[in-house]
């Protein structure tokens, strides 16, 4: 009987355009679209930046050695055109108007200061909203500093090695996989959780509130099927659609990575592919399955209680935020899976997945997380069962 209900509800759900959009179309397309936009926009920005000639306004004389060296700086540092100014206010104004992107102020006595080995004050002006300009200024300064520092070492007959007290080496002992897991590992479960929730939402409302609203529930309740069987048949469809939506989102993400050259570094790409092993995917599903049941178990009592589709939607939609916020914990560095975090629903799934990706998962904590989620899933199913058994909730009036 459960399978009969499941089969009918599945057919009914798969014929609902709104559910199909939320369950299949949007999850599959969202990442390719976002990634495509990201790749296209960043490529066009890079292209524009490489071809764009930077106007540098200089407050100083043409015979200033630093200005001369700036003009002579290699084109590899970016195309540039130097314009001379005598009025600071005008230069500032032109930077604000974006007719000039960088302003440079060098004291006229720079040559004298160079000769006497004194530090020279250099001021760069830029518009902070014009992204990347400070970095361009730093690039030119790096070039000039290297040049003048080496010149001073030579003039003073100093071996640069003798004035450098330390040769510091910072070695990252973390593997690339661990780094990826820690830095980006929170993203994967976040997607799964967010889309899993959205994927469950419409079928849950349609199959419970919708059935009540359309008046089909009464006839169903007069058939020789126990209420728990009806509940489980419907619940299975909602869980399946949540898992399908989440899987579709992950597939969309995978195809984006695979075919859209989002990850240009071949080594990182190899690690990403290595992470997506069968074992990893199965463990991820093992964690996310009870989580999806938990979501469904939370949504069903609301959907059963609500009198109309609109009412159910208005209660369940804000829940999305409640679910997504703990899922974002995965993005914060430093929060790790331990005995406490393993007991916090949603957070435990995110952290377990993150550590799973990083290859640092402690299986004891995974078992604890799974146990917690399973208990909550069972509890939420029990609450759903109780709510679905109430006459006032099941029949419209």
């Amino acid at each position: 009987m459960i399978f009969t209900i499941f089969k009918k509800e599945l057919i009914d759900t798969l014929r609902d355009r709104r559910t199909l959009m939320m369950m299949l179309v949007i999850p599959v397309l969202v990442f390719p679209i976002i990634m495509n936009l990201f790749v296209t926009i960043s490529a066009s920005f890079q292209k524009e930046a490489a071809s764009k000639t930077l106007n540098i306004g200089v407050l100083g004389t043409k015979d200033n050695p630093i200005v001369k060296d700036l003009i002579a700086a290699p084109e590899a540092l970016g195309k540039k055109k130097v314009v001379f100014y005598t009025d600071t206010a005008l230069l500032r104004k032109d930077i604000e108007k974006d007719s000039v992107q960088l302003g440079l102020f060098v004291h006229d006595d720079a040559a004298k200061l160079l000769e006497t080995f004194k530090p020279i004050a250099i001021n760069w002006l830029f518009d902070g909203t014009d992204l990347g300009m400070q970095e361009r200024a730093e690039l030119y300064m790096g070039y000039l500093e290297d040049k003048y520092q080496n010149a001073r070492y030579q003039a003073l007959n100093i071996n640069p090695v003798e004035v450098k007290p330390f040769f510091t080496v910072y070695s990252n002992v973390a593997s690339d996989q661990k780094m990826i897991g820690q830095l980006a590992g929170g993203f994967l479960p976040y997607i799964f959780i967010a889309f899993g929730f959205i994927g469950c939402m419409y079928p849950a409302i349609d199959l419970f509130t919708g059935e009540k609203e359309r008046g089909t529930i009464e006839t169903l309740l007069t058939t020789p099927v126990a209420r728990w069987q009806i509940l489980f048949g419907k619940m299975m469809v909602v869980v399946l659609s949540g898992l399908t939506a989440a899987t579709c989102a992950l597939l969309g993400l995978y195809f984006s990575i695979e075919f859209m050259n989002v990850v240009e570094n071949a080594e990182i790409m190899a690690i990403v592919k290595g992470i997506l092993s069968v074992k990893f995917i199965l463990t991820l599903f093992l964690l996310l399955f009870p989580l999806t049941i938990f979501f469904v178990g939370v949504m069903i009592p609301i959907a059963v209680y609500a009198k109309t589709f609109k009412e159910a939607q208005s209660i369940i939609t804000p829940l999305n935020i409640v679910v997504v916020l703990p899922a974002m914990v995965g993005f914060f560095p430093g929060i790790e899976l331990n005995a406490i975090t393993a007991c916090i629903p949603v957070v435990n799934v995110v952290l377990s997945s993150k550590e799973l990706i990083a290859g640092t998962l402690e299986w004891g904590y995974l078992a604890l997380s799974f146990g917690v989620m399973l208990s909550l899933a069972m509890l939420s199913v029990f609450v759903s069962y109780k709510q679905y058994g109430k006459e006032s909730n099941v029949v419209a009036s």
Partner: protein
Amino acid sequence: MIKVENLRKEFELSRQQRKELGTDDRIAVAVDNVSFVCEKGKVFSLLGPNGAGKTTTLRMLSTIFTPTSGTIEIAGIDAVKYPQEARKKLGFLTGSTGLYARLTPVEVVDYFADLYQVPKNKREERKKYLFNLLQMNDFLGKRIGKLSTGMKQKVSICRTMIHDPEVVVFDEPTSGLDVITAANIIQLIKDCRDQNKTVIFSSHIMSEVDLLCDDLSIIHKGKLKYSGTMDDFRSNMEEPNLTAEFIRIVNL
């Protein structure tokens, strides 16, 4: 046969409902001490104005609601103790019955045949019989959402009768329907009687009652006001017509 004894149904009122009704009572009695018998091969009518308790009574008979007290026997089965067994003998149709708009008539009928566990060979026989009887063959493959009200009502009838129930419950079956569709329902009720089924239907349309009814009960504010045969009702009338007599009894 349906046998109902001392049936009572109480509903707990929410704060909102108490406010709306202007009462401090936490409990509302929808049906109070109602008893009647519907014989096999007869049409029993449950009459009453809106809010009288007809739908609640029929929902208890159909096992959608559990009575607070009292007994219900459907085709020899205690429907309170064994609701699932009783449902196998029961067909239920209301005027407000919804259907699954995204399914076709065949899919809906098959779904209910599955739920009633109708054996495959009997199912095909019943489907063929009902589809022909109700002239449904032209729209069997169309989605229900695209059908007219009359066609939908035919699907509802088919769904109700697919397992050939011994007892059929009609809750205001013609409410909101056009004349032709309502006539189909009236014919179905007559057919059920001819097939020796137990039929109970609720209505407040006296012309339907006059046309179909063998026995009747009048219910008002949850209490039984009259119970007897239609012939007795007609012969003991104090008013010139059925509607006036019905109003008189309700106001007693």
